[in-house]
């Protein structure tokens, strides 16, 4: 079973060694080298940058980590929450991005030309097919130091490629795990060609719940005309992990994307989630569930970019916060001049379970077209004491009452997820974390 040993530091020598250890096509190495140059030029994000002003990463020490080397020490993989009780069409798992622990795809899907498994392996085996998609670089490598690092040194991750008009009616599952103190530079690439359909359940987890480490990841979802993708991404790292991610979806004409995020783990998370609707009549539904505790800090920047007319986007993020934790949600609906008849919505609700938790909610609109419907909403509040009192008079403990109220708070998001195992896994994981309300 593979595991990653890393030499601390991100030096040119380390990168050259990393690159030479990989048997990849020249064009891919060139992409990596260009991104590495950008990585070397960029400084760490500063708090004068508006996007980072509410997220303090001064305690994050990049030079304590290094590049994945692919060496192996072993370790028992964590239990996959989203796969419980699901008939899967395929699954893949990696540890520290060092290589595939396990990958399988049902023959009935493979025979239809579906590719699913370890991205580094498949990109070598199907270089000509995948090259145009990787060269599109949906995630801009120059966005910040973390996106540049991922573009330069991604290792591990999943690929799903579904050919034209192929419908996969069984969910696929990918798991990316990290050992304590490890480094995960995972990249997920999903391509649904015209008229294809698929569901991918993706999750990240540490080998130990208290584990630390560094994740700089990227997700690229390409939904071609008329395709339909359901994508679930559960972030369940150990509570000392630094999590930085850039996630980008492109939905073409008549395409449909349902994207659900569960954010439970990590010490600090800074995520950019961007959905671009690029063809007429495209649609995206984005769901977010966040539950924080202790001194966790989760920051999500969401972006719904309407580039074409008659598109619809609907975003709902819900967060419940315990202890001294903090969430930052900054949402933007951007409507280009050409995107007339846009219908866009964003909403963020926060349930405060302690007086020392804090939720920052910053919705935004940037509209250049003049015939659109774009609305947003945000609420933050505490649990109603009367509801708790009522539940306790019916025989529930205070903790049980709070758990019920929290479940009810998230139910609206769960109702939007048509995959029972996902709702149950999220509900169970959150339920285990709920404690009685603290003053």
């Amino acid at each position: 079973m593979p595991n990653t040993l890393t030499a601390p530091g991100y030096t040119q020598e380390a990168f050259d060694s990393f690159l030479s250890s990989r048997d990849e096509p020249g064009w891919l190495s060139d992409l990596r080298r260009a991104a590495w140059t950008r990585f070397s030029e960029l400084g760490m994000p500063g708090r004068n940058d508006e996007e980072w002003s509410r997220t303090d990463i001064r305690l994050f020490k990049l030079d304590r980590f290094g590049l994945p080397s692919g060496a192996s020490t072993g370790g028992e993989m964590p239990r996959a929450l989203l796969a419980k009780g699901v008939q899967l069409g395929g699954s893949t798992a990696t540890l520290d991005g060092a290589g595939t622990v396990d990958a399988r795809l049902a023959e009935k899907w493979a025979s239809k030309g579906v590719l699913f498994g370890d991205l580094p392996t498949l990109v070598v085996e199907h270089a000509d097919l995948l090259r145009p998609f990787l060269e599109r670089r949906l995630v801009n490598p120059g966005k910040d130091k973390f996106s540049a690092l991922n573009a330069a040194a991604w290792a591990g991750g999943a690929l799903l490629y579904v050919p034209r008009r192929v419908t996969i009616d069984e969910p696929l599952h990918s798991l990316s795990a990290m050992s304590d103190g490890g480094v995960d530079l995972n990249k997920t690439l999903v391509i649904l060609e015209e008229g294809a359909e698929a569901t991918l359940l993706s999750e990240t987890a540490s080998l130990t719940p208290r584990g630390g480490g560094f994740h700089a990841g990227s997700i690229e979802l390409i939904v071609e005309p008329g395709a339909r993708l359901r994508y679930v991404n559960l972030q369940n790292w150990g509570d000392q992990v630094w999590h930085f991610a850039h996630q980008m979806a492109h939905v073409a004409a008549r395409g449909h994307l349902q994207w659900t995020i569960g954010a439970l783990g990590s010490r600090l998370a800074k995520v950019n989630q961007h959905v671009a609707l690029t063809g007429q009549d495209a649609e995206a539904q984005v769901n977010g569930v966040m539950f924080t505790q202790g001194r966790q800090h989760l920051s999500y920047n969401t972006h719904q970019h309407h580039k074409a007319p008659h598109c619809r986007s609907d975003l709902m993020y819900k967060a419940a916060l315990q202890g001294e934790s903090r969430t930052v949600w900054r949402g933007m609906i951007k409507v280009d001049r050409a995107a007339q008849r846009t219908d866009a919505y964003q909403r963020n609700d926060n349930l405060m379970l302690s007086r020392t938790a804090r939720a920052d909610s910053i919705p935004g609109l940037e509209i250049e077209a003049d015939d659109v419907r774009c609305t947003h909403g945000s609420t933050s509040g505490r649990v109603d004491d009367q509801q708790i009192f009522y539940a306790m008079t019916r025989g529930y403990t205070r903790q049980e009452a709070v758990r019920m109220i929290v479940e009810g708070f998230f139910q609206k998001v769960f109702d939007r997820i048509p995959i029972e195992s996902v709702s149950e896994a999220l509900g169970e994981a959150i339920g285990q974390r709920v404690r009685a309300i603290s003053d």
Partner: protein
Amino acid sequence: MPEFVSVARVSDVSDPGSMLVEVSDRLIVLIHASGHWYALDDVCTHDGGPLSDGPVDPEGGTIACPRHGAKFNIKTGAAETMPATKPTVAHEVKLEGDRVLVRLHDGS
């Protein structure tokens, strides 16, 4: 209760002045004002900005957030001016010879 941790030498911080230090994976602004030493969480409770970049006023007994000007009492951490309304956490400080030691307040 956490132990006192040595964080700086007396000569490291002018009077008045401040210095950013790390104590047990936490950012603390160490303040030297009118011969006394103080330690606060390096967090403005208004929007999370770093207090360690802000000016110390020894006469008023405050440190100001450089972003929006909120002032905090350097002894207690209390928010003394808008836009901050909640206190930042104050920690215990003592001197041993030329060393400055900080003990984190764990009831933040």
